[in-house]
């Protein structure tokens, strides 16, 4: 609503806008809400990562973590076009544009020692290395790890010695059995540079330390220490870290905003439409109808609403429509009461009498003359109901009633906070998974409440400072 679009004599809306502009907190709230809404609308563009794609080796990275832009293991074969699913994005994105590109990977080699671990149930009894030599203890350095030989899965252990309990990552068995494991050490000295040149849709050459490499080459992400494409370092930055499953926290928050804001908006529209219409009809009809309709509201007001919403979501499948209806049904009572009060005072005014004298139908008076005059209240209620609904939806997600859409559970902010809470760890070491979604949600609610209060003050200055 810019000033030059309005008539010279300031209408009530222009005056309200002027008053709102003087309220710094409300404007700050408006800015935050707008940014959130834009980010949610264009989530696909804004979010740095696709929240549905997990990169399983990038789990629990702290905020600001940088990570080379790689996939777990990928194959390059000289003379062949790489398949999209087993190469990192930089390798197929640059292909086919008619130019030559070069990328360099600093790769370290793995040294693998075979281990034969004799187990008794869940207990290690004997460890043998090369040539059946018995080892007293295997101590693992920072560059070392163990893995199950056939399955290739990692074993979580700092050391291995006879007498210790079965480490994590090993399937439990009964009786005496033998675990074939590998002691993997990344050899930092044996760093080689792999150059992959590509152009015209195919990998034109693969060279390892100056010599051409024929045939296919498998590169494991954990061995790559540095990566440059056309001289530029390629890496991911997880600004807010990643979660337990390797999803980017920032991207999940942005996509979560989409759900939360959408739910807030739609449920608010549902509830306000019901509330305004109900209140207007009740107020305009007056008399016995009014008493009856308002008594019904009184009865419904006394209900423990959130409990009924939970029952509704339990009973019916937890889909988005049920949620909209449930939350919409909760929130219509207060607008109905307030709009009724407004209508009661407006309907005594002269312009209504004039309309009645002209023979306008009651329905038309309601829609054309009375309801438009309650719009100030409606706007205020919209801005205050949206955060309330977002809060309720997140509350439901948090207690486990995650809403499904198209069979898939939706990750709204409440669900993110809940998963963050469960991921904290014994010393709270993975705090970012809880703190950032919680902060995003609190900031949004905070801003919306400020904006709502500001709008209320702006549209009805007499109410200023109440509550």
């Amino acid at each position, binding site marked *: 609503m810019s000033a030059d679009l309005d008539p010279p004599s300031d209408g009530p809306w222009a005056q309200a806008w002027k008053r709102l502009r003087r309220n710094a907190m409300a404007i700050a709230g408006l800015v935050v809400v707008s940014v959130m809404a834009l980010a949610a609308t264009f989530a696909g563009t804004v979010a740095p990562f696709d929240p549905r794609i997990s990169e399983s080796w990038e789990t629990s990275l702290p905020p600001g973590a940088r990570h080379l832009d790689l996939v777990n293991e990928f194959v390059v074969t000289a003379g062949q076009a790489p398949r999209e699913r087993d190469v990192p994005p930089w390798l197929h994105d640059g292909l086919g544009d008619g130019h030559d590109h070069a990328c360099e990977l600093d790769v370290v080699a793995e040294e693998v020692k075979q281990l034969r671990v004799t187990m008794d149930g869940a207990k290690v009894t004997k460890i043998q290395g090369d040539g059946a030599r018995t080892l007293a203890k295997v101590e693992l350095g920072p560059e070392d790890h163990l893995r199950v030989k056939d399955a290739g899965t990692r074993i979580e252990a700092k050391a291995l010695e006879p007498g210790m309990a079965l480490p994590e990552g090993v399937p439990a068995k009964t009786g005496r059995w033998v675990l074939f494991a590998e002691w993997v050490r990344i050899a930092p000295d044996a760093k080689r540079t792999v150059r992959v040149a590509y152009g015209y849709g195919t990998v034109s050459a693969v060279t390892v330390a100056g010599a051409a490499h024929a045939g296919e080459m498998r590169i494991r992400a954990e061995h790559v220490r540095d990566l440059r494409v056309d001289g530029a370092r390629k890496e991911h930055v997880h600004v807010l870290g990643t979660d337990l499953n390797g999803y980017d926290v920032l991207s999940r928050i942005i996509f979560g905003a989409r759900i939360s804001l959408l739910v807030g908006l739609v449920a608010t529209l549902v509830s306000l439409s019901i509330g305004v219409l109900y209140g207007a009809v009740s107020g305009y009809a007056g008399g016995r109808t009014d008493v009856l309709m308002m008594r019904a509201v009184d009865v419904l007001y*006394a209900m*423990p609403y959130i*409990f*009924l919403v939970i029952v509704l979501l339990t009973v019916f499948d937890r889909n988005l429509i049920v949620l909209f209806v449930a939350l919409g049904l909760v929130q219509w009572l207060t607008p109905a009461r307030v709009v009724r009060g407004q209508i009661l005072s407006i309907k005594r005014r002269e312009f209504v009498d004039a309309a009645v004298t002209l023979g306008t139908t009651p329905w038309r008076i309601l829609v054309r003359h009375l309801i438009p005059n309650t719009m100030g209240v409606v706007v205020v209620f919209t801005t205050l109901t949206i955060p309330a609904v977002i809060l309720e939806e997140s509350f439901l997600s948090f207690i486990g009633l995650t809403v499904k859409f198209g069979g898939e559970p939706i990750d709204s902010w409440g669900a993110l*906070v809940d998963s963050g809470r469960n991921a*904290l*760890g014994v010393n709270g070491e993975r*705090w970012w998974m809880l703190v950032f979604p919680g902060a995003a949600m*609190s900031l949004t609610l905070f801003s919306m409440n400020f904006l709502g209060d500001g709008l209320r003050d702006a549209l009805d200055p007499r109410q200023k400072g109440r509550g």
Partner: protein
Amino acid sequence: MGRYVLRRLLWTPLVLLVLVTLTFALIKAAPGNPFAMDRVVSEEIRAQLEARYGLDKPAIVQFGQYLGRVVTDFDFGPSMKFKDRTVNDIIANGIGPTMLLGACAVILAVAIGLTAGTIGAVRQNSVFDHASMSAATFGMSVPNFVTGPVLVLVFALSWKALPVSGFDPSFSLLPALGIAALHVAWRVTERIRVGPAGFSWGREFACLWLGLLLAAVTSVVTLLARSPTLILPAVTLALPFASRIARLMRAGMLEVIGQDYVRTARAKGLSETTVVVRHALKGGILPVVSYLGPAITGVLTGSLVVEKIFAIPGIGREFVEAALSRDYMLVLGIVVLDGLLLVLFNLAVDVVYGFLDPRIRYE
């Protein structure tokens, strides 16, 4: 006043009836069988199960029987998931922790909110006023399922000053303390005068009120000091209400302080403390009293979340678990019970409000 209370009391069963009917209808409209389990149950067993829960009769008969049992025996029937427990057993076990937690939270919220709000209004635009009001606005916006885990993160996991979860309240000192506090309140209020106009709202009533508040706050503080598992849940639950009460109290006090009778009291040369405690407080507290009804609803709702976060064996947690496992009888029982509690608390709050504000005339 008496007629008003009577009318509200008559209104209560109607509200509860609507609530039971709504919930029951919703549950009956549920698609599928409540005994839908992974394993296939033979026809006979299913028939027996349905007979045990009365599901073989038409819905209206089931409703009548349920209502009859609830009204005459206060019997909410058997649980559908716990074969050997009735809904009454589960509620009886859970109501204690929930009530204790809720009471602690309400008392904390009232104590913190009233203090902060009063000081904020008396020292308007001071540093304390700005700080406490910013904190209150923030406290109102941050949902308790965010504050709870964050408090756990800070105080329990990182700092390790408080336990993460659990429930082991220790009451040993409480009875003695409660009696002592009530005795103090009694001594303080000994000189209550009943004036010609009935119960006068003066110095004495303020004393009684402050005495009871003091007793309640001391009990809660002692309880929390002796049972650290309760601290974080009570604070989490109290925070949004404390914030709201602080804001309401400040606004109410500011309005009252500007009025003539307060100016008169000041003009008489009374000390500022006397003016605030004896004259301004009684008017300024009214918005807070009318907020107590919604606050109690909020505490019951909030306990769903807080009991989940802190693993407290209350009815809130039972309700969430019942809802997730579709134990309809338990869900129904808890909804009805909570509805009853809410209606009664709201009635009590309205009656208290009527006492406090002589301007209110219930027609």
